[in-house]
Structure formats: C-alpha cells, structure tokens
C-alpha cells in the first residue's frame, strides 16, 4: 500500500484537520514533558480503577466527541445554507453525515451518560466502587480506543460514507470498497465490548452493593433508570455485535449475508441493525429521564411525584423498546400486517412516556421552584421533548410514514428527542453533579447564557426542518434547490447559536475552575440522595461508614437525624482494589488488532488477537486482592476533607 493511499489526500479541510491533530498532540506531549506530568498521567489516570476518575475520563472524551460531531454538523449546515454551495463535495458531505451520526450516538451520548452513571450510581447506593473495578477500567479503554479507531479514519484510510445506519448493499464490499466502512464496523465493535461489560458491571453493582436496608424500590430514580438501561444494554448489544461481525465477515472474508450475490439478503442488515438500534434509542433516553427526575425533585424541593409509576413506566418502555424496530423501515414493504403490528406497538410507547411527563409536571405543581442552570435545562426539556414525541407518533403511523420517511421531517423529529432529551440531560447532569466531581460549582450566570444560546439555537435550527421536510427536502443530500433556501438559512443560523452555547459551556468550565468558590461541605444543592452525603472532594473510598437506609431520599432523613457518613465509632478498615495498567495495555493491543483488520492485514490482526488472549491469560493468573485502608488513615482523610 502506498503512503498516499494510507493517508487521506486532496481535501484542504482534511489537511487542516491533520495539521491541528499534529499541533494538539505535540502541545500535549510538550506540556506533559515540560511539567513532568507523565508519571502523574500514568498513575492517576491511565491505571486508575476508581469509578469517579473513570467517569471523569468518560465525560471528557464525550465532550471532545461532542466537539467533533458538532463541527461535522456545522459543516453540513454551511453546505446546506444556499443552493449549489461549494463548501463540501458530495463525497466529503457523505462522510461527514456518517461520522456525525455515529460519533454523536455511539461516542458522545452513550459515554457521556455512562460517565455520569460511573460517578453517581455507586455514590447514590452507598457503594465504595463498582462490583468489578478492573472490568470497569477495561470498559472505558475499550470505548476510548474504539472512538480513536473510528476518528482516525478521517485522516488515515478515509471515513465511512454509508450513513450511520450503514445499510447494505451500499455498505457492502462491492459498493463501498476500501477501509472506510471497516473503520465503522471495527470501531463500533471495539467500543461495544466496553458497553456490554459496563452494563453487566453496573447491574451487579446495583443488585448486590446497595447500602444496608436499601430496597430496590427505595433506590434513587437515576439509579433505577441505570438499572433498566443496563437491562436493555445486556439484551440489545449482542445483536449489534453479531450484525457488525456478519458485515465484517461479508466484507473481509467474502461471506454472502447481506450481498446481492449468493442469494444474500441486504435488508436483513436493516432488520438486525434496528433490533439493536431501537433499544439503543432508549439506552440514551432512559438515563436522561433519570437525570431530569433527580434535578426536578431537588429544585422543586419536593419528593418526586409518582415514584413507583416512574419506575414501572421505565420498565414498560424497556420491554416495548424490543418490539418496535420495524418502524424504522416501514417503507421496505414488508406488507400491511407486519407494518400494522409494529405501528400499534410503536404508538403504545407513548403511554408510559406520557405517564412520566405528567409525573414531572405534578412534581413541579405547587412547588417552590429554584431556577438554577440545571433546573433550566430540565424545564426546557419537558416541552421540547414532547414536541419530538408528538412527531414520533406521527412517524409511527405506517401509512403516513411513507410520506415522512427519509425527509427532514424525520431529521427534525429525532433531533428533537435526542437533543432535547439526551443532550440537555448531559448538560444538566454535568452542571448538577459538577460540584461533587470537582469541588466547585459551574458559574450560574455564564451557565444560563450558555443555556439560552443553546436552547434558542436548537429550536431555530430544528423547528424549520419540520416544514422543509414536508416541502419534500430529503435527508442525506449535499445540495438544495432554491425553494428550500429560506428555511435552511434559518436552520443554519440556529445551528451556529447552538455552537455558541457549547463554546460558552466549555468556557464556563475554565472560568469556574479559576473563579468559583470551593465547596466546603459535600451538599451543594441541599440534595436528597446519598451522593450528597459524601464530603467534597469525595475520598477515594467514598463512604467512611455506610449509612443504613430505611426509605426514599436517604440523605434527607440522615440530615434530619443529624447523621453523617463519618461515624467514628463504626469505622473499620476498608478493602480497595489496586490500580493496574493492564486494561489500558490490553485494549491498546486490541486497538492494534482492529486497526490491522481495517486494512485487511490478516496476519497482523491475528498477532494482535493472540496478544489480547495472552493478556487475558495473564489476568487469569493474577491473584492481586487489593489492599486495606486502615482506620487511622480514614480518620485523617475524613478530618481533612470535612474540616474537622
């Protein structure tokens, strides 16, 4: 293979990307060397098994991916502003809408939420870490290297260009030769390992590591949403694993699953993809529901209305999420019976979702609402998300879907649910739990600026797309006709508004780090659940003494009784897992194997795979049982952080 086939050439924007990658990497290497921080990076971060640090790494990576996906989005919006724009070529445009969708769903939304779960769930249930801390680190590195593999495609080998859904036969070897599509398949496969492992890990953590006395129906609602989400992850991700593997075997080893030759069945890919893909939608929305429920209860200063109904509606949504996948391809023409069945099941989902909406409203009803930044995101979520829900029911009607299908109406719909649901929740959750993570709040004034920019930008961007869609503008076209121009101009303006909101948000991180007053006690918002019972910064073992729980809103009753998580009479030595660099190394080797397989260098891929197996064998012989934190040390740490 020649060098100019290995690197992507001929696009000025991509040369710009290459230059900036080289600059940022050298700057990072220079800073780490200059400040002598390599040891710190390795010991504190790359080898950590602490759920709080892993969570922070998830969120930082997700913010970087949000930036990448956002830049893709802005480039698409520029190209679509006026008819016959010459900003992006057709090929480059195809690559960008593919990476935008994939990055945002797989490498932004999920890791962001999983990052929040990592930090918050053990704290909410009174646990000292995950059930399997080693596996948790492994999950993070598998996601991280998966994301890197996918992202490297735009400078090396070329990006995938068959859409984030990668329908066959277009995505097959005959019509998409070269490494681009392989990057998609293997990047997702690598990240998917970590997602499944996290699902199992979190489920065991929640089932087995709750504070004494905490029954399932006394868990904080975010923990409940996490438990339901892990259930979906465990049962949906294997389907993706298989679908990706089958297409990889098709492309690299010449099998005939989704091909047009050998009596293959291209639509079987769509079937499998959406069997995973629809539950995936709920994997990214249920945790968002949990986050909003926490925030609304905290800042309405009321117990969440209809706690049990909230839980059951989530369970029902999880069950239904596996029964609606065909609504993504009604126009395949499977026939009236098939479409009717899935049309009905689709509309059923509106029922439990409606229950949740009314519960949030009832929580807010007659309460003293504190308008904080986190609460603003939550309040904006309700009406915005309902709009997306209503268009969703419209799309769920099979007959009408033939009209909406593949148009900008659909684009508007799923951005209304994914941005107003998931992205708002990511911002809200980050703002809300920020003091727990970093020991200071984000600045409220700047936070509200960023909120208003983003919210208004969002509606200006996506509301017009409903109409331009009904006017016939299809998705995934790289140039528009003059009739669609006015609404597209508005849309682009809105997209830049969202961009400004994001920039202000990131600036706020810097500004607050410099200027925000440090937290003195751990309870930044007068919270209700156990995560606020820990001091800030949270000691690495979380709870010096684990409280006994006897009801909902455990911390609220602790505060009434004057209890803390530092009861000197009950202190015992705490068992903690040791740090290890093996997850990083193992996933690094698997990254190498996947990269080789992308270019179909089978020998090298086999070497990498054997290396991974050897790492697993080494792990099997590892009898490291962690270490104990002695009582005296706990006392010392607790007195320092509590200012006693």
């Amino acid at each position: 293979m020649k060098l100019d086939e290995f690197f992507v050439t001929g696009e000025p924007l991509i040369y710009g990307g290459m230059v900036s990658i080289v600059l940022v990497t050298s700057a990072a290497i220079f800073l780490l060397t200059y400040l002598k921080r390599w040891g710190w990076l390795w010991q504190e971060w790359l080898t950590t098994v602490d759920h709080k640090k892993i969570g922070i790494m998830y969120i930082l990576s997700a913010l970087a991916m949000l930036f990448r996906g956002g830049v893709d989005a802005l480039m698409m919006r520029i190209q679509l502003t006026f008819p016959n724009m010459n900003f992006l070529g057709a090929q480059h445009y195809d690559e960008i809408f593919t990476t935008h969708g994939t990055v945002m769903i797989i490498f932004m939304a999920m890791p962001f939420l999983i990052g929040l779960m990592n930090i918050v769930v053990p704290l909410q249930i009174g646990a000292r870490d995950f059930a399997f801390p080693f596996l948790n680190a492994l999950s993070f590195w598998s996601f991280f290297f998966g994301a890197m593999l996918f992202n490297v495609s735009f400078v090396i080998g070329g990006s995938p260009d068959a859409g984030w859904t990668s329908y066959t036969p277009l995505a097959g070897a005959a019509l998409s030769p070269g490494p681009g599509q392989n990057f998609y398949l293997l990047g997702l496969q690598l990240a998917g390992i970590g997602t499944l492992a996290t699902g199992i890990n979190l489920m065991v953590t929640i089932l087995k590591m709750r504070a004494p006395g905490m029954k399932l129906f006394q868990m904080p609602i975010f923990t409940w949403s996490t438990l339901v989400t892990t259930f979906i992850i465990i049962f949906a991700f294997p389907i993706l694993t298989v679908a990706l593997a089958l297409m990889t075997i098709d492309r690299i080893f010449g099998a005939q699953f989704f091909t047009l030759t050998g009596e293959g069945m291209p639509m079987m890919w769509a079937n499998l993809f959406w069997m995973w893909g629809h539950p995936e939608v709920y994997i990214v929305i249920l945790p968002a529901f949990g986050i909003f429920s926490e925030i609304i209860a905290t800042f309405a200063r009321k117990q969440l209305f209809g706690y049990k109904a909230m839980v059951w509606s989530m369970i029902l949504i999880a069950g239904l999420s596996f029964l609606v996948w065909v609504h993504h391809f009604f126009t395949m023409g499977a026939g009236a019976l098939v479409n009717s069945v899935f049309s009905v099941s689709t509309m059923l989902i509106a029922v439990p979702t409606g229950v949740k909406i009314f519960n949030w409203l009832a929580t807010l009803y007659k309460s003293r609402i504190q308008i904080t930044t986190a609460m603003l995101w939550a309040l904006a979520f309700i009406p915005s998300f309902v709009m997306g829900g209503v268009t969703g029911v419209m799309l769920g009607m099979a007959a009408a879907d033939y009209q909406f299908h593949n148009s900008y109406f659909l684009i508007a719909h799923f951005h209304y649910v994914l941005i107003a649901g998931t992205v708002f929740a990511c911002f809200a959750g980050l703002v809300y739990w920020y003091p727990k993570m970093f020991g200071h709040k984000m600045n409220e004034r700047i936070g509200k600026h960023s909120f208003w920019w983003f919210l208004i930008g969002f509606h200006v961007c996506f509301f017009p797309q409903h109409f331009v869609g009904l006017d016939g503008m299809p998705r995934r076209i790289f140039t528009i006709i003059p009739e669609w121009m006015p609404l597209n101009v508005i849309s682009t303006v809105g997209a830049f508004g969202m961009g400004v909101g994001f920039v202000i948000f990131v600036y706020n991180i810097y500004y607050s780090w410099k200027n925000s007053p440090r937290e003195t006690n751990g309870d930044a918002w007068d919270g209700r659940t156990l995560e606020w019972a820990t001091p800030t910064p949270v000691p690495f073992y979380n709870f010096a003494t684990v409280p006994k729980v006897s009801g909902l809103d455990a911390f609220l009753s602790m505060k009434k009784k004057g209890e803390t998580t530092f009861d000197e009479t009950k202190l015992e030595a705490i068992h903690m897992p040791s740090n290890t660099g093996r997850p990083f190394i193992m996933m690094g080797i698997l990254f190498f194997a996947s990269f080789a397989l992308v270019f179909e260098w089978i020998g090298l891929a086999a070497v990498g795979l054997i290396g991974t197996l050897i790492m697993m064998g080494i792990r099997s012989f590892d009898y490291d049982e962690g270490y104990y934190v002695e009582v005296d040390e706990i006392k010392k740490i607790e007195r320092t952080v509590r200012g006693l």
Partner: protein
Amino acid sequence: MEKNTKHLPVQHIIGFLLSIVLTLLAVWAALGSDLPVKWIIIAIMVLAVIQAGIQLFMFMHMTESASGGGHVPWNMMFHGFVLAAIVVAGSLFTMSFGFTHDHDGDHSGHGSHQEEQQMHD
C-alpha cells in the same frame, strides 16, 4: 458444605440419562417417524427446550439459593429466551412477508423485491 463424597450425584445421572433419551427421541422423530414436517419441527423444538431446561436446572444449579443471587440468574435466562424468541420469530415474520420466492410467477430469483431499499431512521 456438604461432605457427601460417598453420595452419588443422583441429579446429574438422571439429567444425563434424560438428555440421551430426549436426543434419541428427537432423532427418531426427525428421521424415523412418518409425521408431517410441520409437526416434526414443533416436536423436536419442544424436546430441545426441555433438554435446555435440564441443563439449566439440573446441571447449572440455576435456582440454587446458596448463591445469594436470588431470582437474578433465573430472571436473566428467562428474559434471554424471551428475547431469543422475539429475535428469531420477529425476524422471520418481518423478513418473509411480502418476499415470497415466486411472486407473479417469476422464478428468476429469490428476494427479487428488495430493490426498494430506502434508508430510514
């Protein structure tokens, strides 16, 4: 801890014998009997499910209370098999409707109605 070294693992032996009998029964039903094909398929699938149950309950101690796992193992297996049914039956239901092999008497190829593949989220 049961110190029953002398005891025969009765449950395992019964499970093993049952498995062999069920396997032979399935082979007979498929290759030796004169049942209609549809009934053969139903019968041998039922036998397979029974055999899977033997493995899970008699060999894998799925409901063993000493595990402290409560209903979780049973629950995950149950839902796993429900999902399996949805995935297999749902795929067959979705992918076979409207894709008859000889539509309009055209025998030229299978799945000739798949040209209209449109993308949709």
